[in-house]
Structure formats: C-alpha cells, structure tokens
C-alpha cells in the first residue's frame, strides 16, 4: 500500500506496457531530471555520484541547457542559487562530504525561498569516511545542514525506478512551495543497475512574480534572505513556518508492506528497506508475523501513520545503514506505543537479510504479545 498525498506513480498496467531497460542509478536520476525539464545542472566530482555529473555533462549541452562543473560544492550550490533566482529549474548533486559544503547554500536557498533539487548519494562518514553506501546523512539532511530555523522536504527512494518518479515530484514540490528539496539516495542506489521501465514526468511550469528577469517596465525585484529589523525577520520566519506546516500536512509519503495483521514491524527507508523487505519475507516464512513500514518522505516524517501502525505491534525494529539516526524520529513518532529496537551497520557495510531476521527474533523474544491482539 502506498500512501501519499500526491499521486506519484502511473498504474502498474501502464508501467508494464513499456519496455524495461537496464539503468544505472546515478544516470537514471540524471535523465529523469532532464525529462522533468531541468534547465541547469551544477556539480562537482565526488564518488559515488560522479556518473550523475558525467551524464549531465553529455546530455545537458545536447538539450541546449546549462551545465557547469563548479570549483567546489560551495560554488555549485551558489550557481544553483543564482540560476533559481533567475527562474530556472535547477538540479545539483553530490555525496556526503560535498553535502557538508552545500549546507551554507541550503540555508540561503531556504531563507530566500528558492526552488532547487539536491541529490545526496550518501557515503560513509564522518570525514572522508569511505565511498561505500551509507545512510549516515539522515540527521544532516532532515534536521541539519545550514543555520537558521528552516525545514527542507527530503524524499528517499528505495529503487532506481522510484528515484526517477521522485525526481519529478521533487521539482514539483520545490516550485510549489519555493523551497529546496533533497533527494536522499545512497551509494548502492547510485551505483547499482536495475531493470527499469523509465517513467518520466515534466511538472507544469509556473512563472513566479519573484523571478529575476530584469526590471524592464516593472519595479525592481530583490531575492534575499537578509532582514535586519527583528520585526521583519520574525515576520519572514513566521511566513516560512506557515509554509513548512503546509508541507508537513500535505507532502507526507510512506509505504507499507504486509503490515496488516503483523505483530512486529520493520521501519526502514531507501536501500535499507530493500534488505528489510527480504527479511520480512524470510521472517514470515519462519512463522514470524513481520511487516514493513517504509518512510518515503523523511521530512515531513510519516509520524502519525507510524504511530498508528505501532499501536497494533508488539515491537518495532528500525534498520538503517547508520549507527541510528532515523530511529530517533521513529521513537518520537511512536511515543512508547511499542518498544523500539534498532539494527544498523556503518562504514559502507550493508546489513544482510539474515542479520535483520536475527534482530527481529531478538526483539520478539524481549517483548510480550500485545494485550487483546491475539
């Protein structure tokens, strides 16, 4: 069951009618952005997302659109800020160390209310870490990056096909709310190849009355984040918060699998959810009534849906490619409705399905059946 406030996938029949092709994640995301009408791409080489930049280097000039390999990730996100202010549909991409450098730009994009889509193909950290897959930027993407009171929608695909769909959705959300949007992938999604029926979508364009096009026959426009008067900045912050509330109400996305009748739930996003899905199947085969809850939007987090699901479970297991980041949001959402356990691997290591089944068994053994559920 997919629960979203925005329809994001064509019906299965329509998808199967198309021919399947083998696509690499980074390249599929890049082409999805092009087909979604991306006018400009700015990036800096970093593993494991370099193929995204390379795809854009070849394809954007073919389409007559802008491509710049910037001097740094700081340069790339700053170019994105300028292009977005001039009304372009803009993509930047990076991996974790580069995401740290883009934090400054994210704060200014949020403050200036500029739509930009940022792909972070996460790798292990901290520091240079490794080039292996990780989900250790969850806190940075969902809670952190730049300074100031702001939120940024974060979408986390679990497959290459879903990443392509979410790319178009990301542009649409960015422009509808005038906000940067993060597409949070990982080294596996970036590097793996999967058979995909390419589904492209070009979100409609809207010309904002804020776009910088030259003050010819109209008063000059200013795109800025500086409001020196405290009253003015508070008013601006209240405006931003009202927008974030609207996003939190309307853009929550998640998916559940085999959760109806389940007694124990696994919560996982992105590539961890792929492992968890296999683990849930094996657990079911072994007689353990497991189900999967997969957040797709990490902010806004599907808190209400998870809380509701957890109220029927004897235990919840959160699985991540991190030392435990999303688990904090899961605990906040569940608020004690069920005991929450965690299993994570770091440094580019990926938990195996049997590891997750083992963690499910331990959680099962440490908990009691829910009163009245059996």
């Amino acid at each position: 069951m997919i629960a979203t406030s925005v329809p994001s996938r064509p019906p299965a029949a329509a998808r199967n009618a198309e021919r399947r092709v083998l696509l690499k994640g980074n390249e599929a995301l890049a082409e999805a952005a092009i087909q979604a009408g991306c006018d400009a791409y700015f990036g800096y080489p970093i593993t494991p997302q370099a193929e995204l930049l390379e795809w854009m280097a070849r394809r954007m000039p073919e389409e007559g659109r802008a491509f710049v390999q910037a001097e740094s990730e700081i340069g790339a996100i700053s170019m994105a800020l300028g292009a977005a202010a001039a009304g372009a549909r803009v993509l930047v991409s990076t991996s974790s160390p580069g995401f740290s450098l883009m934090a400054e730009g994210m704060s200014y994009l949020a403050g200036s209310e500029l739509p930009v889509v940022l792909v972070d193909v996460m790798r292990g950290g901290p520091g240079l870490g490794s080039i292996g897959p990780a989900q250790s930027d969850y806190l940075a993407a969902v809670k952190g990056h730049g300074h100031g009171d702001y939120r940024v929608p974060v979408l986390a695909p679990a497959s290459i096909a879903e990443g392509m769909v979410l790319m178009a959705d990301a542009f649409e959300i960015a422009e509808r709310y005038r906000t940067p949007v993060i597409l949070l992938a990982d080294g596996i999604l970036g590097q793996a190849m999967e058979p995909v029926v390419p589904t492209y979508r070009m979100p409609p364009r809207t010309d904002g009355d804020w776009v910088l096009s030259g003050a010819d026959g109209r008063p000059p426009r200013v795109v800025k984040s500086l409001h020196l008067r405290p009253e003015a900045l508070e008013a601006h912050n209240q405006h931003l918060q009202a927008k974030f509330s609207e996003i939190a109400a309307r853009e929550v996305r998640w998916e559940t699998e085999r959760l109806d009748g389940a007694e124990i739930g696994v919560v996982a996003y992105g590539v961890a959810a792929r492992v968890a899905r296999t683990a849930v199947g094996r657990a079911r085969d072994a007689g353990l009534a497991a189900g999967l809850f997969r957040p797709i939007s990490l902010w806004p987090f599907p808190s209400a849906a998870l809380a509701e699901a957890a109220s029927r479970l004897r235990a919840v297991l959160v699985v991540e490619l991190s030392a435990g980041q999303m688990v904090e949001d899961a605990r906040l959402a569940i608020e004690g409705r069920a005991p929450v356990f965690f299993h994570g691997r770091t440094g580019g290591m990926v938990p195996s399905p049997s590891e997750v089944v083992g963690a499910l068994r331990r959680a099962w053994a440490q908990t009691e059946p829910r009163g009245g559920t059996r």
Partner: protein
Amino acid sequence: MTVQAPVLPAAPADAPPARLIAGRPRLLEDRSTHYCPGCGHGVVHRLVAEVLDELGVAGRTIAVAAVGCAVFAYDYLHVDFVEAQHGRAPAVATGIRRVRPDHFVLTYQGDGDLAAIGTAEIVHAAARGERITTIFVNNGTYGMTGGQLAPTSLLGQRTSSTPLGRDARLNGYPIPITEMLALAPGTAYAARGSVATPSTIGRTKAMIRRACETQIEGLGFSIVEVLSNCPVGWGMTPVESIAHLAEVAETYPLGVLVDRGAEG
C-alpha cells in the same frame, strides 16, 4: 576634530542663471543611504548607475549583492538583485549568466568578500571567462563588522584585529588580487581606479564603462577594482581618508591591467 565645510563665494549679481551640471542618476533611488558619512560606496554606486543607464542595459540587468556594507546596494540601485552568500557572488552570477544568456550580470563586492572568503569563486569565474562584470570596492578593511584586518589591508595598517598594525610575519601581505585575476586568460578586462579625486573618479567611470562593454561584447570576465575609503574603519575624518587613498595607491597602482578587447 572639526571638519570645516567649504565656504562657497557668493555668486556675482550679473552671473548667468544656474545650470544643472550634475544630478541624481535615474537608476539611483532618491533616498538617503545607510553608509557612513564620507564613505566611497555612494560615489561607486553613482558611477555604476550612470554607466548602466548610458549603456541602456538597466532593464535587463540582474545584479548580485555581496555580504558587507554594500549588501544593501539593492536599496539604492534601480535594477533586479539577488543577495549572495558571503564571497559567492561570482558563482551566483555564473548561475544567472548560464540560464539568462542575454541579460547583463553584475556583481558588486567588497575586499573581504572577494579577496578572502570568496577567493575560489572569483578566481574560477575569471578562469571560466564567465561573461560577468565585477565591481570590486577595495577599502582595505571589513567595514560592516567593525574594521578588522582585510586581505587587502596595507602593511602597518592598524585595524581592530591588528591593533599594532599589519605585520607581514604575522598577518601576511596585502593581496594583489586584481593583478592575479588579470593573468587569467578568461579575464578580458581588469583595471583599478579610485574615488580619491574628481579626476580618478572620472577615469574609474571610464573603466567601469569599458568593463561593462566587455561583457556586452561577449569577450569574457571583466573586473574593476575601485580603491575606496572607510573613514570610520580607518579612524580618520572623511577628508583625511580621501587624502590617504594616495598612499593606498602606492600598494595598489591605478590603471588598466588588461584589456584583451583593445589588444584585438
């Protein structure tokens, strides 16, 4: 210290009627500025406003405001503006340029912004030969934050973060960033002017005009450094600070550094 206002002689009775020889440029908003008394930014704003108007590009100009005293340039100059992060104006301008090829793109930056935190962005905008024009106002200090050492501060200059004066062994040397940028093949025009005297101001205007023409002609990156004064940051009266610009010009000589358009 008291500053004497100049006393104008009374006009003789048979003088011809007054004739306006200088007014407010059309692109400069009719309002008082936040700049300190005697600050050179007002002069540079005027020159930019005059040149954009004379070249007829104001209606398709997108300017980038940089962090520093002149971040509020958008309150005075009657063109579209976007505000950049500190030092990033040339990258922001690059983004605009690449999606608006027919527009006129300008950055207005100070020396802390351009020659310290934004060194990478300005160097690579020049290296790419980005078709943008940078107005670089060098007053040798961080005016907005209280007059600290800037990369361009003179040797011996007392600032709030070099209370004993800039010592090369501790604080390094003044950076000749415009000379460095002039070396880049992508830099089509680089020059250094000053707000010191009416005559240097006139030459600076010609430089700004030539830099803007360079962009319009599609020749590459163009930059005009303008030596300007910061009376408050320097601890001088406006008159003293203007006189001091002659000493600043000994470290930063005035003139055209490169004009590839003229080289043909």
